């Protein structure tokens, strides 16, 4: 069903068609529109047999989802940024207990300095929390990944995080083919939990586990995540048969066949990258794009196969491991079958800085020309950094750092175009 719709509302419609039984809502930008929309669907009676609970924190949101899921209900929540960190303890707990909760993360920067705009710092901070992490390229895929996520979570008894870029996707109104209820019902069977709190068959869940079995519990979580590496591509094909369009999969290559350079990225930046690559191909550069649609489990084999013939890799990522560099690129280097020196890290778009085609094209030309460094911060205002460093050299009490930078920048709107 084609509809001109905001990304958040489209995701809410898709989630509703997955028949969640408990939805926990706590507002945080840029996720809020999703739970608002679900609240309306419950209030209007369109989404029946669903408890919509306004909680007092993200920690409670995940905790309510844990209780609901352990009691055999299909549970969903959504969050972003500080909210994901605030619930972090419960996020680990949900995966440790093997509860198939689905959560949308509307990716947003983490403070301080406080910043509401998009990057991937939040999801990346929790990349090893035991949840499957899927990344949407556009709103169509965000919708489709949620429909896949519930089935994947319940099949493996593992929680799934669907990551979509905050504002860029959540607040973008575009054409989305929404799945019908019949399609989703054909795709997603009712939830049959492996463990459930049931007075007719009492079990204890969440006991202390010592050294005698803890490793094995962790290993099995790893083992199950690795199973997703087989299921995700298999189900991407199945999904196409039911819904008539491709979605998901581990990785997707664009114009990589004869590429000398391949740009690796995840999320909405893939669209801009494809446009840029199209333009650069006109200039004669042999360049392609490899989109990562699943980040955990890490699709090492798929990445290795996709990059086997490629002499240079550029990873464009919206997160920074402070003191190290790239996060995604560490993973790519480990999977790349050739010298890790040929994998370049480009940190871009932190805190919502626009990633323009012009900047990407310039960076990729220098990559093709062999002049791109191992670690690059795209469009870093080096003058601004130099001023701050000079101030710190000149005096001890320089005051609050971020505020000093803002003073240096001045009123953005007053700057010449």
């Amino acid at each position: 069903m084609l509809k001109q719709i905001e990304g958040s509302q489209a995701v809410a419609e898709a989630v509703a068609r997955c028949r969640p039984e408990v939805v926990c809502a706590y507002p945080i930008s840029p996720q809020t529109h999703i739970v608002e929309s679900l609240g309306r669907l419950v209030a209007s009676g369109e989404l029946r047999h669903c408890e919509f609970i306004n909680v007092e924190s993200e920690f409670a949101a995940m905790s309510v989802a844990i209780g609901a899921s352990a009691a055999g209900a299909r549970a969903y929540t959504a969050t972003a940024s500080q909210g994901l960190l605030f619930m972090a303890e419960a996020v680990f707990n949900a995966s440790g207990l093997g509860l198939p909760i689905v959560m949308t993360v509307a990716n947003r920067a983490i403070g301080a300095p406080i910043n509401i705009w998009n990057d991937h710092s939040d999801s990346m901070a929790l990349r090893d929390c035991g949840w499957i992490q899927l990344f949407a390229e556009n709103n169509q895929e965000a919708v489709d990944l949620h429909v896949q996520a519930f089935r994947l979570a319940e099949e493996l008894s593992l929680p799934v995080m669907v990551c979509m870029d905050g504002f860029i996707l959540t607040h973008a109104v575009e054409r989305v083919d929404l799945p019908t209820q019949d399609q989703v019902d054909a795709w997603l069977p009712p939830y049959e939990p492996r463990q459930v709190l049931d007075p007719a068959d009492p079990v204890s869940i969440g006991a202390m586990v010592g050294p005698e079995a803890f490793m094995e519990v962790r290993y099995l979580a790893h083992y199950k995540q690795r199973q997703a590496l087989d299921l995700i591509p298999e189900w991407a094909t199945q999904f196409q048969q039911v819904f008539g369009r491709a979605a998901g999969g581990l990785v997707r290559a664009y114009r990589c066949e004869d590429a000398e350079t391949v740009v690796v990225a995840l999320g909405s930046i893939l669209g801009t990258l494809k446009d840029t690559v199209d333009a650069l191909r006109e200039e004669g550069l042999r360049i392609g794009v490899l989109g990562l649609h699943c980040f955990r489990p890490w699709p090492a084999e798929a990445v290795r196969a996709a990059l086997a013939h490629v002499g240079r890799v550029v990873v464009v990522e919206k997160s920074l491991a402070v003191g190290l560099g790239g996060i995604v690129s560490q993973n790519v280097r480990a999977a790349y079958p050739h010298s890790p020196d040929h994998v370049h890290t480009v940190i871009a778009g932190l805190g919502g800085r626009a990633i323009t085609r012009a900047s990407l094209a310039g960076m990729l030309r220098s990559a093709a020309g062999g002049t791109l460094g191992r670690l690059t911060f795209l469009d870093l205002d080096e003058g601004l950094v130099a001023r701050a460093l000079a101030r710190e050299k000149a005096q001890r009490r320089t005051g609050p750092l971020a505020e000093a930078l803002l003073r240096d920048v001045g009123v953005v709107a007053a700057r010449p175009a």
Partner: protein
Amino acid sequence: MAYKPIRFYQTGTFTVGNRLLPEGQRSVQADMRRTNSLNSGHRACQGCGEALGARYALDAAMQATRNQLIAANATGCLEVFSTPYPETSWQIPWIHSLFGNAAAVATGIAAAMRAKGRPDVRVVAQGGDGGTTDIGIGCLSGMFERNDDVLYICYDNEAYMNTGVQRSSATPGAARTATTPADGGAAGNAFGQGKDMAAIALAHEIPYVATATVAELRDLEAKVRRAMEFRGARYIHILVPCPLGWGHASDATIRVARLATETGLFPVFEAEYGSVTRVSKIRRRVPVEEYLRTQQRFAHLFREPARTDLIERIQAAADRNIRRYALLDEAEAP
């Protein structure tokens, strides 16, 4: 015909043969159908007030719900001593998630039961004072405010006992704990403003709030039964002495709990929708000193030079409770 309840006094308590009572007043523990929700064989210390309170509370809740009960547990002594796998003491469906989220997990379970059309299945959340008054208060207050259909039971032993007796916000002034030492003239825990969790629950105007101690287990059972008659958020705060943390003999748990009520330090009452409906009167009022002297955690108050100033502050707190909750008949009130 005028009805006068018979009181059988035995070493100062209401102990009475079960057969002499009408069926509704008999102890759940004396019922052949009792469920042993928290079964024997667990690893609690000898004389543990929490294990005793939990057994009575949950068996009463099971009886009230015709065994349709699910429990969510905060991290703490009760969680650790009850599930030394491969053994579990829980004969009821039970989940432990985290230290600070038992109330929210219980909310989730209750929501799942509503979504699945199982209103007969009821939910109890439980935690110690640390999991309730400190780290779990956010989730607990949220559960109260939404009036979720959960009975939350706090087993208050006035410190973090599971980690080795550290101070919590429920630790009384002057008490010695591992983080409020009484060495070298230090006076133990500082007198703060206190955190009266039952009063906080009361301020949410939830359907039912009660306090109880393990000294009056029949009263505790009755309160759990009463709590299960309501839908919505309910709170029972149970004082459970800890022989290890308080430094009293393991056979003194009941006596110490009784002294806490007879001094007025721990008022025992029931409330509905924000108003106190019943208080347990003090039958034999005792000065706080009698209570304090039973416990090593207050021993420093009685060494030379005795800290009569601090004992007086504690007595003042007890007197305030007695006035506030009218714990004495008017003639005897301070």
